[in-house]
């Protein structure tokens, strides 16, 4: 995020004497000597250093659908250095040309903006294929030699960006192999080494800690970039601009004015072809532990002192640590799990979760979760945060709703109904936008009040395609900006919240599953969860 060059370097004199001399005109202000002032104000996105990207899992679905199309868009936009190469590592046997052909097909299918033939050919010419098994020492020994050869031939100067787009089970092995071959070592005369790790970052607190330890044995934390692609989404990034770039909301953003917060992440699709994956994951691990808690921390965090990676992540971690781990009794009271049965979604009959491909017919995996969390800090004490996420809900929608408190005194006694409290809804997807609800007088002689909305949609003010989250994140990693990546302590703090929940279910008799029909807003217990507090889920 620090891609745009920062404001003019601090050129102020430092001592009182210097200040006085400048005041007297005896000392000319000189620019600071340890910053490159020529970078000030460059509006174009900065181009990363020449480097080689090494993509593990290059033949996988994620690479074809997301990583290569994102890289191709960066190439198309001239945001990759000309001295850039990609080594695609995979187990399957490919020649460079055949592999490029496969990627070319994926680009045609998945590119956000179609690529010119010439641009696509230039991009593909930068890709070489390296076959090998991750358990094989030879794979990495040959890789090290090949990378040196690429440096010599293409001027990539020893800079390396490793990207683990493999199954999570392969992460420790690859990291260890990189360590064994010394590919993690940063050289004194330049030559940075960074590693991008895809989620999941463990499947509970213990495994997350173990993974962090294993990665930490080889790479320093500053070299590690854990991708949660949700953080690269334009509207999620805009959440920070909305909160901290506007003066009028922040004074209201606390327990004094906010009644409660609802965060919803609804999907209308089922598990599709990912049945076996989802069986082991469930909604809590798939989206709540990462995406939903990320949104929560962005909504609830204190303003960071600077817009730099660690300042930002420090504040997010503080929020997560202020959420107390729930006891088993609290989990049975404040957390609801659900699983969809057959039903109708968008005029189409769909099967229940247990009838999905590769799903156990007696599965107890949750496809829905609703929870009530508290943040025990000065700003939010006593303000409940209601979270819900699920599959096969009536529509796809991700939204954060800030429900403000009502007016303290009922002034309009004659009105048929009291004015509804104000609400601010931030829609993440689809139809990204911001909605503010307030009361207005109905025209006429009486004094009826009706709720109206001011609805801002990004599409109407900026009818331009936003970059894909992967484009943003890959470029940031190449530039060494970790603001939008998850830090080790952040991952562990999020697991500290999610792990007790999933563990308690092992000992807890399941609710009768499935407990909601596809195409509905989840089990009744989810409604009870919020209604017993005298509130309701927002109708989205």
């Amino acid at each position, binding site marked *: 995020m620090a891609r745009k060059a920062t404001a003019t370097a601090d050129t102020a004199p430092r001592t009182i004497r210097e200040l006085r001399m400048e005041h007297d005109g005896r000392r000319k*202000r000189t620019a600071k000597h340890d910053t490159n002032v020529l970078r000030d104000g460059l509006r174009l996105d900065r181009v990363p250093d020449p480097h080689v990207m090494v993509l593990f899992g290059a033949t996988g679905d994620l690479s074809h659908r997301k990583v290569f199309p994102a890289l191709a868009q960066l190439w198309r936009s001239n945001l990759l250095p000309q001295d850039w190469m990609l080594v695609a590592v995979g187990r399957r046997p490919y020649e460079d040309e055949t592999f490029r052909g496969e990627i070319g097909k994926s680009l045609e299918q998945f590119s956000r903006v179609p690529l010119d033939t010439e641009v696509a050919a230039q991009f593909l010419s930068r890709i070489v294929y390296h076959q090998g098994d991750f358990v094989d020492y030879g794979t990495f020994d040959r890789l090290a030699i090949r990378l040196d050869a690429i440096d010599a031939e293409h001027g990539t100067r020893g800079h390396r960006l490793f990207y683990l787009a493999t199954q999570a089970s392969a992460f420790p092995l690859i990291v260890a192999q990189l360590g064994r071959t010394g590919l993690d070592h940063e050289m004194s005369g330049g030559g940075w080494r960074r590693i991008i790790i895809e989620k999941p970052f463990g499947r509970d607190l213990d495994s997350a800690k173990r993974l962090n330890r294993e990665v930490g044995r080889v790479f320093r934390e500053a070299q590690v970039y854990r991708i949660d692609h949700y953080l690269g989404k334009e509207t999620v990034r805009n959440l920070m601009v909305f909160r901290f770039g506007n003066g009028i909301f922040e004074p209201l953003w606390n327990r004094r004015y906010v009644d409660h917060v609802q965060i919803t992440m609804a999907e209308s699709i089922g598990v599709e072809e990912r049945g076996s994956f989802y069986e082991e994951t469930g909604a809590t691990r798939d989206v709540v532990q990462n995406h939903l808690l990320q949104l929560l921390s962005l909504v609830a965090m204190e303003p960071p002192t600077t817009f730099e990676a660690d300042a930002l992540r420090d504040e997010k971690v503080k929020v997560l640590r202020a959420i107390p781990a729930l006891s088993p009794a609290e989990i049975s009271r404040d957390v609801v799990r659900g699983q969809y049965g057959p039903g109708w979604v968008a005029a189409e009959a769909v099967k229940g979760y247990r009838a999905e491909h590769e799903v156990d017919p007696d599965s107890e995996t949750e496809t829905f979760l609703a929870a009530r969390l508290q943040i025990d800090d000065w700003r939010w004490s006593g303000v409940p945060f209601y979270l819900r996420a699920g599959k096969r809900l009536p529509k796809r929608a991700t939204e954060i709703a800030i429900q403000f408190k009502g007016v303290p005194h009922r002034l309009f006694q004659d009105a048929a109904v009291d004015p509804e409290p104000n609400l601010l809804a931030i829609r993440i997807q689809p139809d990204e936008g911001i909605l503010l609800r307030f009361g207005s007088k109905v025209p006429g002689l009486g004094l009826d009040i009706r709720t109206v909305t001011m609805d801002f949609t990004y599409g109407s003010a900026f009818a331009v395609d936003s970059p894909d989250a992967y484009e943003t994140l890959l470029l940031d990693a190449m530039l060494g900006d970790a603001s939008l990546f998850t830090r080790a302590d952040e991952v562990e703090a999020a697991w500290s919240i999610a792990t007790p929940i999933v563990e308690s279910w092992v000992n807890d008799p399941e609710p009768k599953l499935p407990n909601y029909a596809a195409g509905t807003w989840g089990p009744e217990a989810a409604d009870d969860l919020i209604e017993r507090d005298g509130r309701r889920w927002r109708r989205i």
Partner: protein
Amino acid sequence: MGVAGGGSERGLMDAPALNAPGIVGQPALRWSSRTDSLAGIEAELARIWRSAPLTTEGVDGMPERRIAARTSVLNLVVIARQPELGERAAAVIRMLAGRHPSRTLIVSSADPDGPSWLDAHIQAHCILPRENAPETCAEFINLIAGGETGQHVAAIVAPLLVHDLPVTLWWPGDPPLISRQALDLLEMADRLVVDGSSWSGDGVDRLRALAALVDDRDLAGGTLAVSDFALLRQSRWREAIASCFDRPDLLPFLRGITSVAVTYAAHRGAGAGGTNIIKPLYHVAWLASRLEMTVVRPLVADSAEEHDGVAGLGPALIGSLRAGRRQVDARLQPVASELPSGTTLTVEITAHRHHQALGIIVSAEAESVIVRSSLDSQTLPERRFMAPRRADVDLLAETIESVGRDPIAVAALRTAARLVGGQ
């Protein structure tokens, strides 16, 4: 409100294309009408939005899509001194319809000695940002003013601006920056957009006038933002030059620069003052302003060279700057080239520190900017930056996206004016 000759509306054009379904990302014409008075324009604008929901026809002839909303984020006023310039500007702006919906006024003058008349073409262009999204529409008014009316453009523009929205004034070609007409228009504007590299002659008189505008307290409260496409086009060059000093061991050389020389394309026979030097001038000015150099001796013809006589390219210009106690030589050197006149060919920087010399040559090849450098006799790794020529549409979009005035551009402009003898 009406102007001479105004009055009769010519009505709504009824072309079938107006109802065609939109294609994602492609601006579509949804309304088109003509009138010959200011009152007529205002009436037409009101009619456009009163007639909502504007719809497109579905396959079965039933209305299919409702136009979402009129959206405006700014007033964009284009002063095209000839209708042809207006046409070119219109083509650029139409491509921005979705990205930056604005109320656009393109004003051209014609037949200055004839009777007064006004011909206005009012259109609504809409764009479908993506499937299943409502269309986003913006208004587009193309005005040609004849006779004396054409001499009072500010009076035509003022009532047609959407209030409370910023006003960007794009003045392609050779704007008469010190004329009364220009000042009247600039008083309404928050931002002036020009292309210094398209000015006639060497362009330095206009550059001095432009620099004076940014300090004019009567314009936008003394904060008129100025965007010059000539400077914007150099952003990749600046990125390339800045990258030379990213290496910690080379950064100290930034404070040891002793000369900056820029070569630029000139055509034989152009002679003194015949080649636009705005782009090469901006290179020196940007570097000097970033490094807080002061102009000691403005650029003058190098008497030691006889280019004028030999190749008719015009003379090299030399001047000097000062950074602290160090003198920095500046040189703009014309070179015979097939490239468009005034195009930068190379930027050469020399810097010294502790008896070491750093030499940097930044040059353009095809669509790349290439940086070659050496430290004493040691050649440093070459770097290439993709730098395809940026179209006016991209430059205008970047200009519109920027908010407030860019202190870096203002500093470069002021230094450029001082380099050519301005204050």
